[in-house]
Structure formats: structure tokens, C-alpha cells
């Protein structure tokens, strides 16, 4: 059991995966000597050499495209996209190649690639550094998409994602990299990667979140509890496939659901969850599923990002509204 930040937990997880399988290679901009702009790959090039931790030319399509070739040659590339907003030059390779090669080849070609993306806002950054692009990947068949929300999950999930034989978009809540510290039990058996998890039980309404908004929801539940309202909080963890079993179970008890994410509300994950849960739990719902997310505007300048991001007040406000139907 060690106390560590999310950044350190991911670093430790990557190291573990590299030790376990020498086909694991890390690729990206500045991942070598510098250890990445967030230091997630700190020290790995020193210990595993520059054939396994590769500083690439500055071209995201090139990074993902060459990673496809490495995967076809039997490697397990772990690609770092420096910031969420810079994944788009690689979008074509991800959507048309990474996602489709298994299908296209009738299952003969596997692309066990992990695409790590530091995502979300709240760090006071300039444009393109605070995006939440997950919905677009979840809409793309062939990709799997997960998001960690705490150091213990970060440590376990990155290893599981690397171990998986399918391409995984791995979302890391960048604003928690160096803030969230927690105990990581490196020898504990990890929960399956493809399961969501109830992180706080409750009975009056359900909150669903992932990545950076899990802690927002936990805070909201604490405040709500003081006001006598019991909120259940579910950390989705896996966005594709979606594991809504615990959500359905919860909503059947609470009758009320609010989904919280930083991505734009329109066609964000909340839309899909609302549609599925309404279909599955139609007669249990006391109110429509409500969504709290980033507004349908581009991510704003840092001085007003707090207004853009879902916060405790907007979450509690939505919970209130579910009681108004």
C-alpha cells in the first residue's frame, strides 16, 4: 500500500506493464527525456531505453498511424496524446484504421493499442487544452473507451487496458493528476476493467459520472446528505462498452437520475445514458433523466471556465429539478 498521486499511479502502472511484457512500447511527443508534459512517463525512457519509449516527430496522425503498424508487427503501443485538443489530427487514423482493422480483417488483425488522453478542464489552460472528446470515440464502433477517476483505478486500469487485445482510448482527468492522492494497493486484485462501480450508496436519487466529475458528484452527495437527501454516486469507469447494470439497479430504487460530465451536453454521454435508462427503467422513473455538462459553446477562456464546468451547485440544482416533476 503506497500513497500516491494519480500521475504517479499511472507512471507506476505503465512501468509494471512494461516490465510484464516487452512488446509494450510508449510513443508520443516529449514522452522520453522529459517524461511527458505531465510527467506520466517520467523515468521510463531512462530505464527501458529509447526503442521502447519513443519521442516521436510532432505529428499525431503519424504517431497513431505508425503505432498501427507496430501493433500489426506484434507490439502493444501505448500512445500519449499530449492534450485532448490535439487528438483530432489523429482522428482519421483512430476512426478509420484503429477502430476498424479487426472488423475489416475478419478478426485476423488485432490492434492492442492504448491511446492515453489527458482530458477535461479546470487547469486554467489556453485553448484546446481542456477538451472532453470522449463522446466521439464512444460513437465509433471498434473502440473501447475508459476513464479513470482516482489513483488506485489509474494504476490498475492502465495495466488492464494495455493487456486488452482491443484498442482502448484511455482518458485521464488531467486536473487530478497532481492533486488527488490516495492509497494504492499494488497487490490488490483489480476490479474488471469493463464494469462501472457504485462509489457512494444512496437512496433518493442517482448521480452518474466519470473521470473528473466523480469527485464533483461525491462532494454534491456530501452536501446533499447534510440537507437530508441521500444520493447514490456511480463512477462509470467504462464508457464503451457502457456498463449500465448498476445504474439500472440504482434507478429502479431511486427513480431519479442525473448524469454529469464536462463534455458538451448535446450528444454527450448523458444523452446515451438518458436514452438507455429511460428505455430500461421507464416505469421506475419519477422524473426525466437530467444532464449536467459543459455548455454547447466552445470551451471558454480560463477566467470563466468555472462557469462552464459542472460544479456542485449545478449538480444539486439538477437533483432538485428531478424532484420537481
Amino acid at each position, binding site marked *: 500500500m503506497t500513497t500516491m498521486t494519480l500521475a504517479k499511479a499511472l507512471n507506476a502502472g505503465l512501468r509494471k506493464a512494461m516490465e510484464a511484457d516487452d512488446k509494450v*512500447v510508449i510513443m508520443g511527443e516529449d514522452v522520453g527525456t522529459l517524461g511527458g508534459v505531465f510527467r506520466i512517463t517520467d523515468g521510463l525512457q531512462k530505464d527501458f531505453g529509447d*526503442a*521502447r519509449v519513443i519521442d*516521436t*516527430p510532432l*505529428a499525431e*496522425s*503519424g504517431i*497513431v*498511424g*505508425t*503505432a*498501427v*503498424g*507496430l*501493433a*500489426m*508487427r*506484434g*507490439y502493444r*503501443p501505448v500512445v500519449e496524446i499530449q492534450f485532448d485538443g490535439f487528438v483530432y*489530427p489523429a482522428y*482519421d*487514423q483512430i476512426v*478509420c*484504421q484503429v477502430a476498424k*482493422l*479487426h*472488423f*475489416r*480483417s*475478419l*478478426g*485476423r*488483425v*488485432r490492434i*492492442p493499442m492504448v491511446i492515453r488522453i489527458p482530458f477535461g478542464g479546470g487547469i486554467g489552460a489556453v485553448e484546446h487544452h481542456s477538451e472532453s472528446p470522449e463522446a466521439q470515440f464512444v460513437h465509433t*464502433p*471498434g473502440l*473501447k473507451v475508459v476513464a479513470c477517476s482516482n489513483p488506485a483505478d489509474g494504476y490498475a486500469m492502465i495495466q488492464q487496458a494495455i493487456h*486488452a*487485445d*482491443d484498442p482502448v482510448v484511455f482518458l485521464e482527468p488531467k486536473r487530478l493528476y497532481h492533486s488527488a492522492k490516495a492509497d494504492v494497493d499494488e497487490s490488490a486484485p483489480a476490479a474488471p476493467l*469493463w464494469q462501472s462501480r457504485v462509489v457512494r450508496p444512496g437512496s433518493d436519487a442517482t448521480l452518474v459520472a466519470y473521470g473528473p466529475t466523480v469527485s464533483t458528484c461525491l462532494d454534491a452527495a456530501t452536501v446533499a446528505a447534510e440537507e437530508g437527501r441521500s444520493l447514490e454516486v456511480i463512477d462509470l469507469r467504462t464508457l464503451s*462498452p*457502457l*456498463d449500465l447494470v448498476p445504474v439500472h439497479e440504482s434507478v429502479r430504487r431511486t427513480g431519479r437520475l442525473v448524469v454529469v460530465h464536462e463534455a458538451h451536453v448535446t450528444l454527450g454521454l448523458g444523452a446515451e445514458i438518458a436514452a438507455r435508462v429511460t428505455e430500461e427503467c421507464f416505469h421506475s422513473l419519477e422524473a426525466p433523466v437530467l444532464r449536467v455538462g459543459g455548455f454547447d459553446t466552445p470551451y471558454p477562456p480560463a477566467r470563466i471556465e468555472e462557469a462552464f464546468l459542472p460544479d456542485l451547485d449545478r449538480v444539486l440544482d439538477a437533483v432538485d429539478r428531478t424532484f420537481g416533476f
Partner: protein
Amino acid sequence: MTDPVFGPAPERVPDPELVQLLTPEGERVHHPGFDVDFTADELCGFYRDMVLVRRLDIEATALQRHGELGLWAQLLGQEAAQIGAGRALAPQDFVFPTYREHGVAWCRGVDPVRLLALFRGVDQGSWDPAEHNFGLYTIVIGAQTLHATGYAMGVQRDGLVGTGEPERDTAVVAHFGDGASSQGDVNEAFVFAASFNAPVVFFCQNNQWAISEPFERQSRIPLYRRAHGFGFPGIRVDGNDVLATYAVTKAALQRAREGQGPILIEAYTYRMGAHTTTDDPTRYRLSDDVEHWKLKDPIARLEVYLRRNGLADDAFLADVAAQADALGERMRRECHALPDPSPHDLWDLVHAEKTAELAAQQAEYDAHAASFEEVSS
């Protein structure tokens, strides 16, 4: 025009000769860099290959006309470029094709019927890339050049470059077209290949056209010179000359295997047919042009050479023609017999590990399909 300040515009540098070993008239010429001798068997083999892939192409085109294929991308005119490139490979080399490399597929032992299946809409490529060391056809222009570069980086990591053992040293070929040279991905592949000195041979078939757009829209200088801007060699070869294409590709592959890094080959050729069977080239090009290139036919010139030098007699030529007929007949037969895929299987193919989510969608589909069978029975 020479710019007084910035010096000669680079396109004014005299173009080094196209590498050619066999003229359109069927005359064997020599090139100092590629002083290769060919055996009669090799030459006859090239001829047979070219005749057979031309037949393959004609047959597939006919099958499309008869509604058996949804589409066909013709290689007519590019036989020499493809057979030269394909036959130069060592077994361990790996090839990343576009959608038109039927001749290379042929050299790699991919059954032509597998190509038909793809264009019929039965599948999206059903050969095993690992079995043939031949990747799947790639339709998104240029994407495969990065895959080739990454694969070559994998070969480096496997320690299979520059060992000096001919059985082990491995090179990778990235095929692409003149149009593709404009795509970001292709240029990024050049950057990565140069940066990592990857053992990849970029093989561009400049067939003068990207659908309706002439080569000049993509580049104002010969394409092989693009490589110079990235710090590796480029060379232009007569892509209608199977001997030259073979010799140049072979040398380039050897160079890559030895660890000397990437190289760009521009095989200068011509797309004699339409872009695909849905295209109508009369809308954008002159038949004069096509006639001009007919005189450079890759098969005719080798046939003249073989005959003139007594390397092929009537019996050989008749035998090749018979093989072509047999191939055509088999293609027709087996194309008709290709079974349609089952929608049920769709969900099995998405991932290596099927998800519960997709299994549920599959079950739903099956139930829906079953309900219809009930109704109709």
C-alpha cells in the same frame, strides 16, 4: 527562369534519366546503376505474371459489368510496375497495398478470388496479412504508408535489419499513388521513416491520374524528388518496364534491409483504364494520350524482346494463354459461388473480446430476424 536572389528554382535542375532497362520497342538497354542480368526463366516468369494479372483484371472488370461485383479498380497498364515490385520481394518482406495492387497480391500468393470477394461486397479483405506478408487493401488514401513505417519500426525493434543474413533482414513496402502524395499522412510517413531510419521502401505508382485530376495538380516537380526534401533518396523508374522496376525495387529493398533507411521509388506509368468501373475517363482526358501510352505497353515490349531473342516460343505463349483462360474461368466460377456473409456475424467481428453490449444487440437482431422467418414460413 533563374531567380537572381534565391537561385535556380529546383524544378529547373535537369531531370536525371528515368531508369529503364527495356525500351517500349522491346530493346534491352543498360543502366550503370542497375547492371542486372536476367535468366530466361525470370523473364518468362515476368511475362506470365503480367499476362495473368492482366487477365485477372479484365475478368474482374467483366464480372463487374455483369453485376457480379459492386466495383473494380483496374490495374490495366500498371502490370509491369506491380509485377516488378512484387517479384523483387523476399519472403519475409511485408507489403502495405492500396486498393489497386492486384499484381502485387498475385506475387504474394493471394488468391484472386479473395480480391473479387472484397469488390463484390462479401467482405473487406479476407486474406490473412500475416500468412502472405501482404496487408489488407486500404481505401483511405495514404493511411497505409504510416502503417508501413510503423511496421518497419517494429522490424527494427525485432533486430531484423542489418544482420547480414539474407533470410532474416526484412524490408517493408508502402504502396501509394501520385494523388496520395498530397495527403498529410504520406508526408508524415516520410518524416517518421527518415527520423527513425526505418527500413521502408515507398513505392509510388505515378499513373498520371488521381481520378480526374492530372499529376500536375499534385506536384510541379517529378515526385521522386519529394524524398530529397525529407533527406532520403528518390528515384524514378519506367513503371512500364518490368525489368527496371524489378531491379530498382530489389536494390532499394536490399538497401533498406541493410539499415540504410527509407527510399522513394516513383514508378512512372499510366492508368490505361478508368479509375474504377464507375468512372468515365472520357470526361477528362484525351484518347490521344491513351493511344500514346498504348505504345509503351508493358507486356508487348517484353513479348517482343522474348520472341526476338528466342526466349519464348509459340508453345510457351500458348501455354500462358491457356493458363490465363483457366484463371478467367476459375474466377468466374468461384465468384458466383462466393457465399454471402451472415449479418449475425457482424457483432463477432467488432472486437477481439466481444462486449456484453454488442452481444445484446446481436441477440436482439437474431430475435428480430427469427420473427421474420416465422412470419414468412
